């Protein structure tokens, strides 16, 4: 029955599913579509448990299968190994939606040195590339690569620290 899917239930889980699909490699528009498909599948074949974490897990498995069905390439051509993806997900996300990661990211980005923050922003804003970073920061290609790597490492450490603080 359509009313089995409540707005509350969808809003509790939709951000998590959408982000999971983005992690796999979906563009935002495709993530919108597949998130909807995952919820419709949930309506047709609900899991036996009603716990939010079980529903979230079920939705992620379904999202992964839907993504596979599209034949799209995974992010960075990584293998679509559900175990590996799930372990990476669980190591970052504690909730059904993952919003806390972005609060932490905001905090950690603010704590980065200016040039690192600038490098990451240029790189990840509007699909920028390393060349754009090099041009923006007056670096050569190797310098931009090194700066981006160090910025990501620092960010990853900060995010881990934030997770442990929670």
């Amino acid at each position, binding site marked *: 029955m359509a009313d089995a899917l409540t707005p509350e239930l969808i809003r509790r889980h*939709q951000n998590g599913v959408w982000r999971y699909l983005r*992690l796999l490699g979906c563009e935002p528009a495709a993530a*919108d579509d597949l998130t909807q498909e995952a919820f419709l599948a949930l309506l047709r074949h*609900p899991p036996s448990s009603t716990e939010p974490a079980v529903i979230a897990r079920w939705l992620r*498995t379904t999202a992964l299968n839907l993504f596979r069905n599209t034949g799209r390439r995974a992010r960075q051509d990584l293998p679509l190994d559900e175990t590996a993806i799930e372990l990476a997900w*669980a190591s970052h996300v504690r909730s059904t939606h993952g919003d806390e990661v972005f609060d932490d990211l905001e905090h950690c980005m603010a704590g980065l040195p200016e040039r690192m923050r600038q490098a990451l922003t240029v790189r990840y804003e509007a699909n920028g590339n390393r060349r754009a970073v090099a041009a923006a920061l007056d670096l050569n290609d190797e310098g931009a690569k090194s700066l981006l790597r160090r910025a990501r490492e620092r960010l990853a450490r900060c995010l881990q620290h934030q997770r442990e603080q929670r």
Partner: protein
Amino acid sequence: MSWSDAFLTMALEEHCNRQSPPDLAEQILQRASQQAPERTSRLASDVRGPRPGDGNHKALLAAAAMVTVAIAAVLGVWHAASEQEAQGPESWLPLQRGTTWEYRVSDATGTWTNTETVLGEARFGDRDYHLVVSHRPEQPQAIAARLVAIDAAGIWQDRRWIEWAPDLGTPPVGRCLLPLPAAPDREWAWTGEQNGQRIEFHGEVLAIDERCKVAAGTFTTIRLRGTTTIAGETTVEEQWLARGVGLVRKRTMRGEDVVSTSELTRTRPGTGSWDPRMQLPTLLAKSDLHELGMPDEVREIELGVDALLIDSAFLRVRHGKDWQFWWLTRDWLTAFDPQDLAAWNELITTERLFTSPRVDPTLGALAICGVAGRIEAAASGYRVTGAAMREQWTGAVGRPTIRIDGRLPMTKNGKNELRAVHIDVQNGRLQSLRVR
């Protein structure tokens, strides 16, 4: 790049682009109202908290759907231990090259066909493994692969995921799928590790001589149950296996939920041979290279990597005056033209086909590019002989140092040039590559 790195990239993209997830509730509800669900959902109660008795599902929360490590497609009909021994362990599974199984797979997302194909053989240690890949007909690239070996003690498997090339870089662990001779109530177990998480597996023979009817026919089967626990989550797989046929039916469960089912619709024995040149027109039509058309000339590069004999071939192909290097597998075709250090390193790290314990990845890459003609394991390192294209390189090759000064044909701006190449490898890592 790992999935954890990918997560950081995804988060940065969302953060930097202010690209938050949209609220899709209205759209979903609208579409849901147009559908007639198969059964009444209990989901409305979700937001009010769990029902009594649901606590036992907490074990399902954590990680991984352990399909990757559970018992997979194999084996044959159980008759009796003495009969098994008389027929030999190999009779359990048809593993000639080209053998295929087609399955109808169903899960919450729908129903589709999955095809499994025996691609070739690879020897690791003292065991001969058979490489079996899975793919869907509409998606030519294989999505998963496993290495299967059979000996008198049992059937062994190492399953690994692939997207664009089988990762055969690490030797298989050889986890037991079924100890032989199979017997009623027989149990076995193993523990392992994946992505830093401990895996516990317990297998048992549930039934023998069980009749199993599927789309491909009715078979006498042995029924197995494999229970895998990783990070607190338990996945159960039940399999029905027919001797001489393989996997006939499979059911995967998490808690009380059947996650997926799979049943055999068709199987075809392999011929044991494979001709890459015959495969070329079909693969070219599906490849990004199709605009080039069929090459005017095709030369197969002999790799001589004795550790690995899977169905793949490196071809040197000519269109007019332009030569290119193409790599072809049973279901994939691509081109190689690494002209700088970054491209070379990418080649080495991504094309791990040749990173068997006996072949250095850099040597594999050299072979791909045709710099080296034949690579053999020797008592003191490696022996590289000949050259696939032109015998115009010289140098000493030996572990851990490889230095090659030679000339490598490369295509630039549509022109085929013979360019001077210097390659320096120490401790298995490329130190410098200069092309002049």
